[in-house]
């Protein structure tokens, strides 16, 4: 407490912090970035290990024999799917019943706010079919879910085949202590959303679905299988769920442990774990894997059908079969054995997976970085904002007294509340417009311009975003007269603290999003004053604005996935990403769009305001 009560030491410390403010901020920023890049360096990361006792020590033997028969079922499913031109509900019900499951169906329908051009859907109607295998060994209070999507075209037929094959095999085993629910969902996440809402009796997004007729116990874990070929070279684990939520790390550990045991190549982000961490290429490989995870998590959207389970405290992941040109192939029997092993271990769980980490980044499937290691990277960036705020506070609390010609000291008047409140209110109103208008005004736009609904929504959003740059600055002068030197300092103090709190909260919920926003917004918040060269700073500010950050992220993501795009394609991708973001918010309740429109963008506008302060 000496620091808080001893005025001399305080003065010394504050003096140092204000004098060396700029260099300390620079050092913090570089240290933050360096720390973040260091996270992918293997000696700084931890090896993954199984924390859950119930899954660690027990041995299971996988005996699933019927891979070929499962593939045949898959082909049959494909034929029926083609015949009905959608989900072959009757066939699935019959087949599941023949395998001894309790089978139920759920119908759902949903009208999208505007047509989804990526997946070509607007009025969505579909049916989920699920069969419950009742646990013979225990009261039916807990359940596990295995799901496979019924996708349009020729995809994921093998996944449904293996699902049905496993159902038949699991039925003949007696060791199940949890109900196992086999779910075939139509229209990927929309069907999943309907099923989960029906299962848990909630309705958060105003979707139409028929209530479920049969239920198992509370769901402990879920896996979603995507498989489109008879043989696979590797299996890819997808963890990122809605709003950047991740399942417990033990689920990833479980997957990895069984891949090792059975001898299947396994990847995350499509990247194999490598051992040559001490070479440049090995390190850059780890960085790429981690950056892919960061970008996917920051996008706040579910990257597989498992993504919506996480909202209900259900640990879930998607397993995707990848068939590339490698010579070494894995057949369907092995994939079935892998799933059998995982379900038997999950069956042994005594409580939900909770022992291991929920906040982590993975530079490879065998390595992870926990929250304690990656938070300092963000903390260093956030520290800059606090230092700047302190600096401004010190400047404001000891106002420089100007001496006029008469030798009379004039203390500048403190700025009125209005001059601060006006930009705040106006930038937030712009944010509200950005949030509400695009979807509301689509009909109007379609009438007057030759565009489709989706284009109308996206282009309206971009138009409002751009119009916001012209609209609000210097509005305070209308109400409060001439802006003062003190005025912008107070506004900047408010804006900096606002940004710090905003980024801090974002980083807690979704570290990747918070870090990416901090990376671009913090330097801008640190250097913007009305006295820097206007044109140059305006260009820099626009480049660092949230909208363009998204554009860069799109290009960077494509680059990392090794599918680079041209400018033209990138732009089209950017437009579709925006429409997907808005749709994700409307359909599943992803928070990225409202966060960006209602909070981040207005905050950025405040800094824009400061730049053009007169």
């Amino acid at each position, binding site marked *: 407490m000496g620091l*808080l*009560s*001893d*005025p*001399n030491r*305080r003065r010394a410390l504050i003096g140092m912090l204000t004098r060396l403010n700029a260099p300390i901020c620079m050092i913090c920023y570089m240290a933050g970035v360096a720390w973040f890049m260091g996270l992918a360096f293997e000696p700084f990361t931890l090896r993954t290990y199984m924390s859950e006792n119930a899954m660690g020590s027990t041995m299971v033997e996988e005996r699933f024999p019927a891979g070929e028969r499962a593939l045949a079922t898959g082909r049959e499913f494909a034929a029926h799917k083609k015949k009905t031109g959608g989900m072959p509900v009757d066939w699935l019900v019959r087949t599941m019943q023949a395998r001894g499951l309790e089978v139920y169906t759920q119908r759902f329908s949903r009208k999208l706010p505007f047509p989804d051009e990526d997946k070509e859907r607007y009025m969505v109607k579909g049916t989920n079919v699920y069969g419950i295998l009742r646990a013979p060994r225990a009261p039916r209070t807990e359940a596990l879910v295995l799901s496979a999507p019924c996708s349009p075209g020729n995809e994921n037929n093998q996944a449904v085949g293996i699902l049905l094959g496993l159902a038949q095999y699991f039925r003949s085993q007696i060791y199940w202590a949890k109900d196992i629910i086999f779910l075939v969902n139509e229209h990927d996440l929309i069907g999943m959303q309907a099923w989960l809402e029906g299962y848990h009796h909630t309705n958060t997004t105003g979707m139409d679905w028929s209530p479920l007729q049969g239920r198992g116990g509370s769901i402990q874990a879920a896996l979603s299988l995507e498989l489109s070929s008879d043989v696979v070279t590797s299996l890819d684990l997808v963890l990122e769920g809605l709003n950047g*939520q*991740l399942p417990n790390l033990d689920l990833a550990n479980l997957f990895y442990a069984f891949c090792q045991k059975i001898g299947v190549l396994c990847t995350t982000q499509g990247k194999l774990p490598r051992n040559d961490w001490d070479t440049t290429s090995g390190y850059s490989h780890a960085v790429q894997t981690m950056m892919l995870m960061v970008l996917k998590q920051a996008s706040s959207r579910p990257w597989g059908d498992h993504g919506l389970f*996480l*909202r209900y*405290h259900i640990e879930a992941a998607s397993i995707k079969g990848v068939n590339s040109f490698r010579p070494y192939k894995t057949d369907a029997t092995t994939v079935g054995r892998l799933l059998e092993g995982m379900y038997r271990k999950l069956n042994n769980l005594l409580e939900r997976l909770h022992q291991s980490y*929920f*906040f982590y980044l993975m530079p490879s499937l065998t390595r992870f970085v926990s929250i304690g290691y990656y938070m300092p990277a963000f903390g260093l960036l956030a520290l800059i904002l*606090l230092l700047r*705020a*302190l600096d401004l*506070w010190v400047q404001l609390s000891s106002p420089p007294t100007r001496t006029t010609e008469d030798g009379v000291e004039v203390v500048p008047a403190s700025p009125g509340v209005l001059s601060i409140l006006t930009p705040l209110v106006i930038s937030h109103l712009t944010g509200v417009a950005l949030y509400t208008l695009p979807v509301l005004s689509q009909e109007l736009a379609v009438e007057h311009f030759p565009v489709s609904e989706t284009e109308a929504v996206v282009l309206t959003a971009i138009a409002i975003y751009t119009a916001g740059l012209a609209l609000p600055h210097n509005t305070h002068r209308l109400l409060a007269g001439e802006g003062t030197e003190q005025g912008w300092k107070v506004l900047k103090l408010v804006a900096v*603290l606002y940004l*710090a*709190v*905003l980024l*801090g*909260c974002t980083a*807690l*919920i979704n570290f990747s999003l918070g870090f990416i926003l901090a990376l671009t917004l913090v330097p801008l918040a640190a250097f913007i004053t009305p006295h820097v060269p206007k044109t140059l700073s305006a260009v820099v500010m626009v480049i660092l604005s949230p909208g363009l950050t998204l554009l860069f992220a799109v290009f960077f993501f494509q680059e990392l996935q090794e599918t680079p795009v041209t400018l033209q394609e990138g732009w089209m991708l950017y437009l579709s990403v925006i429409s997907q973001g808005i749709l994700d918010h409307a359909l599943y309740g992803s928070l990225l769009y409202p966060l960006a429109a209602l909070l981040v963008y207005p905050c950025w506008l405040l800094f824009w305001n400061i730049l053009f302060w007169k």
Partner: protein
Amino acid sequence: MAAPLALLLIVAVTIRAALFRTSLANLISERVEVVSPLNAWKRVVEGLALLDLDISPYSGDVFHETPMVIYLFHFLMDYAEITFMLADCLTAVALYLAVKDYNKQVFRKQKFALEADRIPMDCLELIRSPTEMYYIPLKVAMFYLLNPFTIVSCVAKCTCGCLIYGSALLSAIFLALATYQSIYPLTLCVPALLYLLQRLYIPVNVRRSSFWFYTLQYLFMFLGSLLVLICLSFFLLGSWDFLPAVYGFILSVPDLTPNIGLFWYFFAEMFDHFRLFFLCVFQINVFFYTLPLSIKLKEHPVFLIFMQIALIAIFKSYPTVGDLSLYMAFLPVWNHLYRFLRNIFLVSCVLLACSALFPVLWHLWIYAGSANSNFYYAITLLFSVAQILLVSDYFYAFLRREHHLTNGLYLKKKDGSEATLVLK
């Protein structure tokens, strides 16, 4: 001054009425920061339902309000929203009048001191001018009514008590009412007494019989009205059920629902055989500081009231942001202390950040399931530390101003160099 106050009341009522109409009202009334097991509206409704069925409302483990309140709401059930808005407005008007009255008194005292030349010459800049004091009552009312914390508690229909100071009897009755509601305002008895003594120019002197006479008279009024209230409750209800259900509940803290206070986590983690001891330690915190503070601040009862309300808000067993807003409403009264505050920037940053982090960490813990109670308690702890820093900072600033008023603003050391005041 009446017109701005009326305008303020209208604005405040409009905001509340608008919020009652939105879906936010439901959301807010579920927040643990805003409602406590003592005052949640849901529980009042439950109590009313039990009462309607002729069952004692205390027979379950849900309802913990006092009998008077439940009978009050029994009649006002349909007008609950208006009642809450009215209560807020009344509290604000009462604060307004009280602070106005206090300002008048401060000014008079200052004038006497000036005329008697008791204030050193270089302290003139510490003297408070009437112009700067003119708006303080309004600011106090504004701070209370437009404080987001107050608004959310009103919308959540929290049943927090209110206080006013008028004549001796009235003050005793209101104090008894407040004590009856939640026992902690018992500590406000001392500052109220000091305030009244000061108004009647009775010096606080243990050897004077007038002092003792008045003290006993006041205590008699206070205890008498408390007794009347409790007996009235007994006759209304026909049983003593409410004593353990209300006061036992407050003192022994059986409900460990997370809130912004310090109790829940600590007592959830504790071994049972230490419970009683630590219960005493925690509860004594509220009452412990009354005596030393009253001795130190016997000349300044209103500041003492502020300190006491703040301490109650920090250390009580089921605190909510509504308690916070009450003492924060007093902050404008002390804005002449601003130049002596040292940590106000740090404290306000921490309070701001904590207010934003509460819902975020709650979401991560309860809905996302990825964080746990430790995260939430860390923020609670930080929030309490910030509040304590705030209060002690104001205390220090107040004492320092008083010191300067007697010893001059620019202190010199013995060797003539500029001296600094150090708190140790």
